C-alpha cells in the first residue's frame, strides 16, 4: 500500500490557471506468491525456504492438520463428534501464520483455524473435546493466553484490538493475531477493530482467510471491492494480499507484519487467498450452491501438494518419507481420538462452576436443583 495522503492537511491554495481537481491520495495493493501451484519457485525465495528443517516442520503441520480434519469428519459422520467446520484446502494459511508467531503472542481464531491452533500447541484431544461439545476443550494446556475459537463471525476482532492494547500498555513485545474469513470483512466489527488498532498504532495483525465462500455466498457477493486487503486503506493501516495456498508466502508476509508490529509501526491487514475445498461444516452440503468443476479446478492449487512438490524438487522428500510421515501422524491422530473418546462428560454442576468467580447466592438454588435432578435419575 502506498499512502500519499496527509489526511488532515487543508487543500492548499491552487496555482494560477488551476485545474479544479487534484489528486490527494493514491493507493495500491500488492500480491505475493513465492511458490507456483506446481511447487516451482517464482523468483528469489525468503531465506527460511532454504532451511530443510523449517520447511519440513511446515509440511508436517499441514499434513497433520489434514489428517486431523479427515478424522474429525469421520467422527462426526459416525455420530461421535458434533457439527464440525472443515479446514480442507486452507492448511497453509493457519500453519503459515502460526508458525512464525512467538510464544508471547496472542492468537484469536475463528472456528476453522484448527491448523493454526495445533501449531500454537492446542492438542488434538482438546480440539476433539471442544467439537465434541465440551467446554473443557477451550481450557488449553498449551497456549494459555490464546483465545477460544470465536463462532459469531468477526466478533473476536475487537478482542484482538483489546489484547493488543493490553500488550502495548504493558510494553510487552507480543502481538495479537486474529484470523477471520472473507464473510467477516462485511461486518462492522471488522472495520471498527482494524480502525481502532490503527488509530492507536497497536501491535496487531488481522488475517483474512479468504476461502471464496461464506457458507453459500461467494466472495463476489460480499463486496464490490477488488480485494479485501484494500479495506486496510480505509483504516490507514498496512494492507497486502498473499497467495494463501503458498505457505512460504503466508509465512513471509506474516513475518514482516509481526516485525512491523513489534517495532511499533502498527497493525497490518493480510488477505490470504485460499479455497474451501470442503463443505462449510458437516451440516452443510456445498453441492447445493457451487459446481464440482469449480472445486476440481481449485484442487490443482491446493497447498499440501504444492509444498510437497517443492520439497521433492529440492531433493528433500521421497515417497518413503511421505509414507513414514503419514504412518506416524495417523498414529498420533488415533491416539488423540482414543483419549477424546475416553473422556467422560463433566458433572452437570459444571454449568455453574465457572459462570462467575464465586457462585452468587441466588444461583445456589438452581445448582441444588440440578444436583437433585441428577440424583433422582431424571437428568
Amino acid at each position: 500500500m502506498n499512502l500519499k495522503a496527509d489526511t488532515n492537511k487543508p487543500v492548499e491554495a491552487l496555482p494560477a490557471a488551476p485545474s479544479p481537481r487534484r489528486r490527494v491520495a493514491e493507493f495500491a495493493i500488492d500480491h505475493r506468491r513465492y511458490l507456483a501451484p506446481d511447487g516451482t519457485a517464482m523468483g528469489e525465495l525468503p531465506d527460511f525456504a532454504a532451511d530443510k528443517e523449517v520447511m519440513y516442520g511446515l509440511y508436517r503441520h499441514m499434513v497433520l492438520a489434514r489428517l486431523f480434519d479427515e478424522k474429525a469428519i469421520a467422527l462426526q459422520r459416525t455420530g461421535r463428534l458434533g457439527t464440525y467446520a472443515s479446514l480442507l484446502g486452507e492448511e497453509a494459511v493457519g500453519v503459515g501464520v502460526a508458525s512464525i508467531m512467538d510464544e508471547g503472542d496472542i492468537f484469536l481464531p475463528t472456528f476453522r483455524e484448527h491448523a493454526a491452533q495445533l501449531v500454537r500447541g492446542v492438542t488434538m484431544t482438546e480440539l476433539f473435546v471442544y467439537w465434541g461439545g465440551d467446554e473443557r476443550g477451550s481450557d488449553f494446556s498449551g497456549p494459555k493466553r490464546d483465545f477460544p475459537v470465536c463462532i459469531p463471525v468477526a466478533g473476536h476482532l475487537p478482542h484482538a484490538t483489546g489484547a493488543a492494547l493490553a500488550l502495548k500498555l504493558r510494553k510487552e513485545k507480543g502481538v495479537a493475531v486474529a484470523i477471520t474469513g472473507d464473510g467477516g470483512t462485511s461486518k462492522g466489527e471488522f472495520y471498527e477493530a482494524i480502525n481502532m488498532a490503527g488509530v492507536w498504532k497497536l501491535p496487531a495483525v488481522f488475517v483474512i482467510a479468504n476461502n471464496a465462500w461464506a457458507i453459500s455466498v461467494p466472495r463476489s457477493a460480499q463486496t464490490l471491492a477488488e480485494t479485501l486487503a484494500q479495506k486496510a486503506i480505509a483504516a490507514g493501516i498496512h494492507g497486502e494480499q498473499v497467495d494463501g495456498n503458498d505457505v512460504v508466502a503466508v509465512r513471509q508476509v506474516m513475518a514482516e507484519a509481526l516485525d512491523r508490529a513489534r517495532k511499533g509501526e502498527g497493525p497490518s491487514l493480510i488477505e490470504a487467498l485460499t479455497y474451501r475445498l470442503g463443505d462449510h461444516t458437516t451440516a452443510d452440503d456445498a453441492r447445493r450452491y457451487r459446481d464440482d468443476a469449480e472445486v476440481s479446478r481449485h484442487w490443482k492449487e491446493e497447498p499440501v501438494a504444492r509444498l510437497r512438490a517443492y520439497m521433492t524438487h529440492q531433493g528433500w522428500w521421497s515417497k518413503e518419507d511421505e509414507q513414514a510421515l503419514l504412518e506416524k501422524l495417523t498414529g498420533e491422530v488415533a491416539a488423540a481420538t482414543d483419549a477424546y473418546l475416553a473422556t467422560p462428560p463433566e458433572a452437570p454442576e459444571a454449568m455453574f462452576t465457572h459462570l462467575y468467580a464465586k457462585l452468587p447466592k441466588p444461583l445456589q438454588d438452581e445448582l441444588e436443583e440440578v444436583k437433585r435432578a441428577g440424583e433422582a435419575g431424571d437428568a
Partner: protein
Amino acid sequence: MPEVDLLGAINLALHRAMADDPSVIVMGEDIGVDGGVFRATNGLIKEFGPERVIDTPLAEASIAGVAVGAAVEGFRPLAEIQFMGFIYPAIDQLVSHAGRMRNRTRGRLTCPMVLRAPFGGGVHAPEHHSESTEAMFAHIPGVRVVIPSSPARAYGLLLAAIRDPDPVVFLEPKRLYHTHKEEVADDGKALPLDTPFVLREGTDITLVTWGAMTRETLQAADELAKAGIEAEVIDIATLNPLDESLIAASVEKTGRCVIVHEAARNAGFGAEVAARLADKSLLSLLAPVSRVTGYDTVMPLPRLEARYMPSAARVVAAARQTLEYQ
C-alpha cells in the same frame, strides 16, 4: 467528608479505582479531555494520562469488544457508553463474549470489565436519550447488572463493580445525577453486590424499585405515612443475579407489594420480581402483586415524558388499591 451528588460520587469512585489499581483503564467516547458528556470522567486524564484514559473512535460495539479483549488480558477496563440509547451495538459483545468467557474456557480466561451507561428519562433529552432497557441486560447469564440510587451507593457499588472479577453493566440513573447531595467518605470502601437495600422500613406494604424511581417511590412512602401507612421501600440495586430473599422476607411481613419501574411493563424486570414472589411468598400475600411502570409504548419525546413515567401519585394510588384489596 465531601458533599457530592451522584455524578460526583461516580467521579470520586473512578479516581479512587484508578489510583488504587494500575490495571484499571477508562475508555469511551469523549471521556478524555472533555471529561465525558456528563463530566463523569472529569479530571481523570489529567491525573492518570492518556494511556489509561482513552478516547475511542465512535464505535460502541468495539468499545465493549476492546474492553473484553483487554479484560481477558488482565486489565480492568471501565468502558463508557455515552447513553443507554446507543448501547445496543455492544449487546452482542456482552451476550456472546463477556458473559461467557470464563465459563467457556472453564476459568482459564476471565472478563473483569465494567460497562457504564447513563439511562432513564426525565431530563428533557433528545430522542434515544431517555430509555430504560435494563431488563434486556438482566437476561444475560454471567453479566451482573447493577444500578445505584444515591451518591453513597453509587460510590460503593461502582467500586465493587470495578473490583468484581466478572463483567458488570453499571447503569447510572442520570435523572439523579444532580438531584441530591450527601456526604460520601472517599474511603475506598465498596458496598456488596447481589444485595438489595432497605431504604425505608415499614410494616404495611412493600414497595420494590431501583434506580431513579427510588425517588418517586420514597415520595409515595412519605405521602402514605401521612395517612398512617408505613411502607417498606426496597432498592434492588443488583438486577442480575437477583437475590429475592430480602423482598420475600419483607412481603412475609407486609403481605402486600407494589413494584415500581420506569421501563415498559411487558417483560420488564418487575415481572421477574412478581414471579419470584409467586414462587416464594404466595401464601404470605394478602393482595395481588401490583406494578406501576412505564407503558408498553415507545418512550415519548420530552413534552409527553412526564405522562409516561410513573409519578409518586401513581405509586400512592397503586399502594392504596393493594391495601384495600380484600
